[in-house]
């Protein structure tokens, strides 16, 4: 196990992501954040807080549960049985610039499922993908618009993100 990011680095990355998102979107009024459960939800809340502080207004933040949109529902489950939980998007996504947030971009399948789920709620102006860590291993043609950290990870290794809210510590490790 090798630690690649600590709490300070994670916070710095989120600040940089917020700056880049503002720089790219001249009309920042349309920006809204949607996190993918479960760690993307936490990162999305932090990101929307940083954006809200920088922009001086509240940036909407929602949570997407992608379980029902997964492409492996009828395939062998490698990990735990996926548990369905509510999607909570308390705002209209039509014509918004939606920043989808996840912890790690790996195969790209979660992001694909998230986009399929999102468009069932309306038609955003654009959808951007922001991730804390990007690594090699894509299985679908999806790339991140905002990648906080590019990890050089060999196939078969796993990038794990631990966050205070869910895990009691702030750390990104390669296992």
């Amino acid at each position, binding site marked *: 196990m090798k630690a690649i990011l600590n709490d300070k680095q994670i916070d710095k990355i989120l600040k940089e992501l917020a700056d880049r998102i503002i720089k790219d979107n001249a009309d920042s009024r349309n920006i809204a954040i949607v996190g993918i459960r479960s760690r993307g939800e936490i990162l999305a809340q932090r990101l929307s807080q940083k954006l809200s502080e920088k922009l001086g207004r509240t940036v909407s933040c929602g949570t997407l549960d992608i379980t029902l949109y997964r492409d492996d529902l009828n395939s*062998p489950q490698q990990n735990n049985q996926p548990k*369905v939980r509510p999607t909570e998007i308390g705002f209209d996504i039509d014509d918004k610039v939606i920043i989808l947030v996840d912890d790690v971009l790996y195969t790209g399948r979660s992001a694909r499922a998230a986009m399929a789920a999102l468009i069932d709620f309306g038609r955003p102006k654009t959808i951007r993908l922001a991730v804390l860590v990007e690594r090699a291993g894509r299985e679908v043609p999806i790339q991140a618009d905002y990648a906080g950290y590019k990890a050089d990870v060999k196939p078969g290794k796993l990038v794990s993100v631990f966050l205070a809210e869910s895990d009691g510590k702030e750390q990104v490790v390669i296992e």
Partner: protein
Amino acid sequence: MAISKKARPFEWARKHLLGLRELSRDELLYVLDTAAGFEEVSKREVKKTPALRGKLIVNLFFEDSTRTRNSFTLAASRLSADVINFTSKESSVSKGESLLDTARNLEALGVDIVIIRHNAGGAPTFLSRNINACVVNAGDGYCEHPTQGLLDAYTIRKHKGGLKGLKIAIVGDIAHSRVARSDMWAMTKLGAEVIFVGPPTLMPAEVGKLPVTVSYSLDDCIEKIDVINMLRIQFERQSGNPFPSVREYSHYFGLTVDRMKRAKPDIMVMHPGPINRGLEMESEVADGKNSVILEQVSNGVAVRMAALFLVNQAAAQKATEK
């Protein structure tokens, strides 16, 4: 609403939902938590998710039912499954086909989930032992109606945060009610105290062996209960005269405005439908502020989506294990 934050260390492994008697407390909570995830789907702009895309679901109904069947159909549609309706009156069952032959024919069409309602208790279990598809019980004899029990528990949990310590009265025609039985299993396992209320002629013979208390007087218990579930008098199932007259029944066991004045101010009034207004319940009560009757109907769709989703998940898991 009480949704546990951490995933329970637990896997749903049942490819059939036959009754609530056999479910553990953890399993019940797992279905209710899952249903909470589905409730929001019905509020979206596109009220559909692809979870059961390409799956074939059959409503195999040997008894009349509109609301349960429609609720299951809607639940299946919102999961993107295809649905065939098969009712005994307009099918080959009226020509003498056996349950098993009917089911095998459906299986030859490639059905993935059979939703069955049958007047014989145990029919869903029989079916589950003889076909490969998942079986969901939509009511069998006087035994169980699991999705109704789940949606009642779901509705109570949503309002009260949980069922632990609640006093719940189920009133009326207990003997002929599979709803009362499924409610009883779900509610007692989740920590509630269940009271069956009705005339002795409408109590089941085995009531002494059930985990409930019995009361023959609604007036005796109206003041202390938190939830009251009023059952419909099922005239179509009765033989003999269980009570002297409808008026007398209504007088002693109807939920009237007068009785409601003596109840707790936040009592939840439930009914599995269809209501006989003026018989088991006065209209003012059915439409009053304590009534959650229509909410039960909406919650039923979320609970049935959860049931269909979970049995399919378990089937997918079992298929890969082989």
